[in-house]
Structure formats: C-alpha cells, structure tokens
C-alpha cells in the first residue's frame, strides 16, 4: 500500500475541502453548485454505463446484475442486524441499513481515478452494477421499516405513506435512478457519432468536475464531525466497521462469483463498502420519516465517505491485488 497512490486530484480535492473545514476557513460553496454537479456526474456515469453496456457480453452483464442485486439486498439486511445488535431502534436501523446497501458514486469515481492513475485496468461491469444498486437497498429499507412498525401502526392517515405500490414507485423513480438509468439508456441507444457531440461535455470534463464535487463533499464531510457526539460513538464505529464488512463481501463477490481481476474486484469491493448520500437520504426522508436524518447523513457522509476515500480504497485495492495474485 503505497500512500503516494493517494496523491491524485480526486483524493486531494476531497482532503482540501475536509481540511478547509478543519481550520474553520470561511470558504463557502453555493449550495446549488453541489446539486448541479451531482446531476452532471450521475448523468455522466449513466452515459458511460450505457456505452459500456452496448459493447457488453450479455451473459456477463446478467451475471453482474445478479451480483449487484445480491449486494443490494443482502448488505442492508446485514447492516440492520448489526445495528439492532447494537440496540439501535428498528426504524433508525432500517433507514441507516438502506444507505449501506446502496452506493456512493463519489467514492466509486474516486476509486476509478485511483485505478486510472496507476494504469490498472478494470472490468466495466461495475459501472452497470452501480446503477442497479440504487434501488434494491431502498426497497429493503422500506420493507424493514414496514416490518418494524408492525401492522398496528397502519392507521388510515398513513395510507399514502405506507401504500406499498407507492413506495416501490418512489424507489424506481427516485431522481438519481432516473439520471443513471436515463443516461444509460441514452448511452445505449444513441449511435456513436451522435454521442460524440456531447462527449466533450459529459466525458472529457468528467474528472475535473468530479474534483470540484469532491472538494465540496470534503467540506460537507468536515461539517458533520460536529455531529459525532449527537449520533453517538456506537454509530460512528459502525460507520467504519460496516464498509470493512461490505468491502469484504464485495471482494469475495468480485473475485469468486464474477471472476474479475484486480481492478474490477476492487471496484466491487467499493460498491459493497460505500454508503449513499445522494439518492438514499431523500428516499428515507419520505419512506421512514421517523428515523433521524442526522444519523444517516452523519454516518454516510461524515464517517464512511472519508474513511473509504482515505483508508478504504487503498485497502480494498491491496486485498483485490492479493486475491488476483498480482
């Protein structure tokens, strides 16, 4: 594990934002800029995924989708069990669990930048898996919450909130899902010469825009440190433990199930290890309003995200390389 591998723009911009917050800089980002950048990045990943998909081998793609569904359903259940074991109440556990079954596009893209910088090749299926993994974890979260509330709670008032069809629709029409799948579809159906007209915008600029986004997310992560006391140390510890567990599951799935090499296995580990802070929080706001958003945002953004970017990525890479026998 050579630390100098972390000297890539994505990681350094993140660290800069984090440090700026640490030294109480008055640096401020317009709130809308982060939102604009996340729309751009999700579309860009989607497009990239769609282009990859159009070159993909069908059997392998289905296999990867299967593995993504497995991770998306299994990891939140695992997370839920751990949280309950730690005596967290069921509704907060459900909401947090959903975040860990989903993925962080920022972390994933940092991992891609990390691999690119070292000129390590990787399978392209993980990009597709990323898009797939947005929804299942949300659904599991909903189901866990429904189960937690018990049937008694289903008063009439809750009709809309608890109508399963409505909730499933929400999981699939989530803004992030629309951007990722919409982008994927466009990347898939548009012929290459037409796509070329938008490549400079969505692809050539991508890594630079990601850097700016990560600078901002570094600041966001830094701001959450002040909330650690509020969420309690058990949860903070969970925010470090869970990515290690998810990463391990991801490593195993990437290597043994999907037969990926060093790069691809590491990316699957990152999918397993990372927690959503764009798509899932709004979904949980609506689906599990009883849970405290401060818990899940602090964990995914303030603990797991920086942990993965600084410690996790080189760690998963180290083990992926060992598994691959590099």
């Amino acid at each position: 594990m050579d630390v100098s591998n972390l000297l890539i723009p994505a990681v350094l911009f993140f660290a800069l934002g984090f440090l700026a917050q640490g030294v109480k800089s008055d640096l401020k980002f317009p709130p809308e800029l982060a939102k604009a950048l996340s729309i751009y990045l999700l579309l860009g990943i989607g497009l990239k995924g769609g282009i990859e998909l159009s070159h993909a081998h069908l059997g392998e793609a289905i296999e990867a989708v299967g593995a993504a569904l497995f991770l998306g359903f299994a990891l939140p259940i695992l997370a839920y069990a751990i949280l309950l074991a730690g005596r967290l109440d069921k509704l907060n556990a459900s909401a947090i669990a959903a975040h860990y079954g989903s993925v962080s596009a920022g972390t994933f893209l940092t991992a891609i930048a990390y691999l690119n910088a070292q000129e390590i090749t990787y399978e392209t299926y993980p990009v597709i898996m990323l898009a797939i993994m947005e929804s299942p974890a949300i659904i599991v979260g909903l189901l866990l919450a429904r189960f937690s509330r018990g049937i008694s709670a289903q008063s009439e008032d809750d009709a809309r909130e608890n109508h399963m069809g409505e909730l499933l629709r929400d999981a699939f029409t989530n803004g992030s899902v629309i951007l990722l799948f919409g982008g994927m579809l466009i990347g898939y159906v548009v012929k290459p010469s037409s796509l070329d007209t938008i490549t400079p915008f969505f692809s050539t600029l991508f890594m630079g825009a990601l850097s700016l986004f990560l600078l901002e997310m570094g600041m966001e992560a830094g701001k959450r440190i002040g909330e650690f006391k509020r969420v309690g140390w058990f949860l903070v510890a969970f925010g470090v433990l869970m990515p290690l567990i998810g990463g391990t599951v991801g490593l195993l799935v990437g290597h043994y199930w999907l037969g990926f090499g060093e790069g691809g296995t590491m990316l699957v580990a990152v999918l397993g290890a990372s927690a959503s802070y764009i798509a899932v929080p709004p979904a949980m706001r609506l689906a599990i309003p009883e849970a405290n958003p401060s818990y899940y945002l602090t964990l995914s953004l303030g603990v797991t995200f920086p942990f993965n970017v600084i410690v996790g990525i080189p760690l998963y890479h180290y083990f992926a390389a060992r598994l691959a026998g590099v």
Partner: protein
Amino acid sequence: MPLLHPMKLINIVANMTLEERLVDIAEAHATSGYTILEARGAGSAGLQTGALEGGSNILFMLIVTEPKLTEVMVDIEKLMKRGHHLACFVTDTQVLRREKYAD
C-alpha cells in the same frame, strides 16, 4: 390608503423532499397559491447545509383565511405525527386585495 385585510401566514421549514406533500396540502384546500424559498439550517434532524437533497430545506409560505388555517394545521400535524421533521409557525398578516385569496 388601500385597504389591508387580516389573514394568516403559515410558514413551514422542512426538508425539500416534502415539497410535493406541502403543495398537495395547499391544493387540497384550494388556496390561491403558495410560495417556496430555498433554505438551509439546523434542527432536531441535524445540519441542513443545502448541498445535498437529503440535507436541504425549503421555506414554504401559505397565506390563508382563518377558517382555512385550521384545516391546513390538521394536515401539517398529520405529517408531524408520521415523524416528519419540520418547523411550522403562523403569523398574523394583512393583505392587499382580499379577493385574491380563496375563502
């Protein structure tokens, strides 16, 4: 001076994901309109910096007549009972052109 008429101004600060629900409430009670502003802040649901959808607030403003106030409050109370985090505060106000605001 043009006449001013007493009305109630309902203010709700909530996460932006609640916007559609609040608009539905306004429309269900046939108010003449509503106003929304982007907001940030902090509260029992933690820090809302505005950078991410899950951590962004809106300030939802609704001018209503006294009888409608009661109806709307019942619906807001329902949202809060379900667990939604929001701050709701009502202020006396006086409007120009009473007829603009549905009874």
